[in-house]
């Protein structure tokens, strides 16, 4: 049995210094909510481009970024601006993160500041040597297609610059609430879920463990660039708490009512209980999860928290292959409003021009260069071309956003009518290269 606490700090193995940084309005609100709950061991900070929101925040550390660019008026839903602002104040962001070993970044993706600046903040935090774990919300569907796309791109970027991203799609919360729910309740629920996630992960990493989970385990589960990670928490009291907790997890809309489990690639489960936590509880939860997700790599942790006497709290982080990357790069073609000169830019390059723009350079669209002198015919032709190409782009976008049924019907040729050869749920009559996804180019 391991006697020392598990966190990677060498000098002081007992205390892990954690910091929660809210970025953007949603992030700051969430951080503010958490500051009022029981997460007092963590210090809080707020980062924004909008001075007024920042003023109202209760976080002790406040950092206004991009003051030179936007004079504290916000990024106006433009991730480019958000990114430029963060790049401008990169050294200050680094200073903000210094001293923390684990940085939770809270952000509501889709807007300007969070989407653009959060990846920069994550990079800054990593450069100080901290482990970075952003927890982000994705916009509601009613917020529109463009925000969704911005959020997806932002998520991609964040994944590239952080140790692991946990994602909470707001749309899934709709299922958690009844129709008459007030807007405030929805917000509160978002914050509560994020807080639960932070709390679950923080406890998992800091509490004395029967089965230790180290940050590396967590990072391994969140690492895959093309993976989507989601999380859920559940608690139960009583005799058959293992069963109850598991059922709660299964019914959680955050895991798509448990549908995510069978298709998951990696799962991290943290079981917490009071001193009365039995091995049967731990075993009961883990076995049930394992049965649901046989293929997944399962990382399990169990820990004791005296405050949880008689209770069983489970935090689960599920990673699976997502369509995000695919959709985002496809959708990016429609997102090229960043500059006029980007008409010919192809999907993958969009990310670069969006996020990889040279630091501290004002985004091109704010500065409209004087039009080159053209004859009227040239102007007409160019306009026609532009019109044509943009309509093509739109078409391409609509192809990408076309919904597809998950079933692909593959002819089994001469075995069409015979009894299918099933092995572990796979139909062996379907060509292997199709099932394995071997590409023939």
């Amino acid at each position, binding site marked *: 049995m391991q006697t020392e606490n598990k966190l990677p700090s060498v000098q002081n193995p007992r205390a892990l210094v954690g910091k929660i940084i809210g970025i953007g309005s949603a992030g700051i609100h969430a951080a503010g909510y958490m500051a009022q709950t029981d997460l007092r061991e963590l210090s809080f900070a707020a980062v924004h481009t909008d001075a007024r929101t920042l003023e109202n925040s209760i976080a002790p550390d406040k950092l206004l970024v991009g003051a030179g660019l936007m004079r504290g008026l916000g990024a106006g839903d433009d991730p480019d601006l958000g990114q430029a602002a963060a790049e401008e104040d990169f050294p200050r962001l680094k200073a903000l993160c210094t001293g923390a070993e684990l940085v939770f970044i809270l952000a509501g993706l889709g807007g300007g500041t969070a989407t653009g600046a959060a990846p920069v903040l994550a990079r800054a935090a990593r450069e100080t040597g901290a482990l970075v774990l952003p927890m982000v919300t994705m916009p509601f569907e009613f917020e529109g297609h463009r925000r969704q796309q911005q959020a997806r791109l932002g998520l991609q970027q964040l994944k590239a610059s952080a140790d692991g991203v946990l994602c909470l799609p707001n749309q899934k919360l709709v299922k958690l609430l009844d129709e008459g729910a007030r807007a405030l309740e929805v917000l509160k629920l978002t914050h509560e879920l994020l807080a639960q996630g932070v709390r679950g992960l923080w406890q998992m990493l800091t509490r004395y463990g029967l089965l230790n989970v180290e940050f590396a385990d967590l990072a391994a589960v969140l690492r895959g660039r093309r993976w989507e990670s989601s999380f859920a928490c559940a608690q139960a009291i009583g005799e058959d708490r293992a069963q109850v907790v598991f059922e709660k997890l299964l019914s959680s809309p955050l895991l798509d009512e448990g549908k995510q489990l069978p298709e998951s690639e990696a799962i991290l489960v943290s079981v917490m209980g009071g001193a009365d936590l039995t091995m049967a509880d731990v075993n009961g939860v883990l076995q049930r999860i394992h049965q649901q997700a046989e293929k997944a790599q399962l990382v399990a942790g169990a820990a004791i928290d005296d405050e949880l006497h008689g209770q069983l709290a489970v935090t689960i982080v599920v990673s699976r292959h997502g369509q995000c990357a695919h959709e985002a790069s496809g959708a990016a073609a429609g997102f090229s409003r960043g500059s006029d000169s980007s008409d010919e830019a192809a999907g993958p390059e969009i990310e670069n021009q969006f996020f990889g723009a040279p630091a501290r350079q004002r985004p091109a669209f704010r500065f409209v260069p004087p039009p080159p002198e053209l004859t009227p015919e040239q102007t007409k032709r160019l306009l026609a071309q532009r019109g044509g190409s943009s309509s093509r782009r739109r078409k391409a976008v609509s192809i990408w956003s076309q919904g597809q049924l998950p079933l692909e019907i593959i002819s089994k040729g001469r*075995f069409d009518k015979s009894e299918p050869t099933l092995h572990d749920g796979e139909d*062996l009559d379907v060509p292997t*290269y199709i099932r*394995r996804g071997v590409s023939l180019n």
Partner: protein
Amino acid sequence: MFKSQPIIVGLDIGTSKVCAVVAEPNEAGAINVIGVGQAKSRGVRKGEIVDAAVCGEDIRNAIVEAEQMADVEIRSVFLGVTGAHLRGFNNRGFHPIVSHDREIMEDDVQDAVKNAKAINLPAENHVVHVIRQHFLVDGQDGIVNPVGMFGSRVEVDVHVVHGNFNRLQNPIRIVKGLQIEVECIVFNGLASALTSLDNQQKELGALVIDLGGGTTEYVVYADGVIKHTGVLAVGGDHVSNDLAYGLKVPMGRAEQLKIEQGSALVDRAVRGKNLQLANSLGLPEKTVNLEHLRRIMSVRLEEIFQLIADDLESTGLLDYLRCGVVVSGGGARIPEIQKLGEQVFGLPTTVGKATAISGLKSTLDQPEFATAIGLVKFGAFESKKRGESRTLLPRGLRGTLTQLFRRG
């Protein structure tokens, strides 16, 4: 009885061909192949009959050809059976010794085997083979023959192969419809193993994979006895089907491409190479990428091997295969199949050769005939045993395969 030593015929109704092998035992007791007949099989999918009329015709053609070649009349056959419904598992039976002097008699052994056979199987299932492995006397393991030993309790480990009764009856009924007796049905994988392994290999432990047209059977021998059997309803047909689907060519063309251009591995030399396909007039018709062809084939074959490897892994038998893997059946003709086997199993892999049988050399060298030859071998053991049992043991051994299997 016209002859003191009757002929023995093995009939293998495969997915790609029907094949009959005629053999006669010589004075020394060894068997000598005197005739082979084969016909293209049209009524079989995945090892099971889907068109009885056509299949009956094919069987008749094969039998007639074999009769002409061997110049005999075939009255009875040893029939090979396969299909995804066949399952093998190990079971143990025991019998207390109640006689006064505690000496184990042949009857006690028979009773122990009978107990081992009494398994909880669904009513529609039929036991094809019960193969003795080892005996235990009072918990002492590894006893080959307990008759004459002393003890209070004899136990026997057996390997049971069973399958769906109706599906096993289908080929029997068709063969009987041709006025030919079926002496006994034999699991195809067992027959291939009999052909491909010699006693030493059985003793050291080996895996025999019969990569057939519609099914792949595999048998594990270790310590001289059968430890494990299995059937995958995947075979060469699937490879052809994958090729037809992936390269968008007709099934017949895919079959031809598989035979002419196929390989179990993708080597660097084929990267980017194209094949020009000509139509019946010799005019260029279509181009297919050779790398794709090999890739499709290789992933399918690798999957088949991997499924077998996973199965053996779960039973813990991979470590017993000190003689490695032997591949027989039509699939053994695929170039580089040995290398693929070595990659997947991590064991030396060879292509099966018929051993301990004489006769038509050209027949014996071909891996496709492994099953049919194995059926003949099985038949030879069986008739020898029956002959013995008629003289020595009037009760007969009731079809159990005894030491013959252990000793080859």
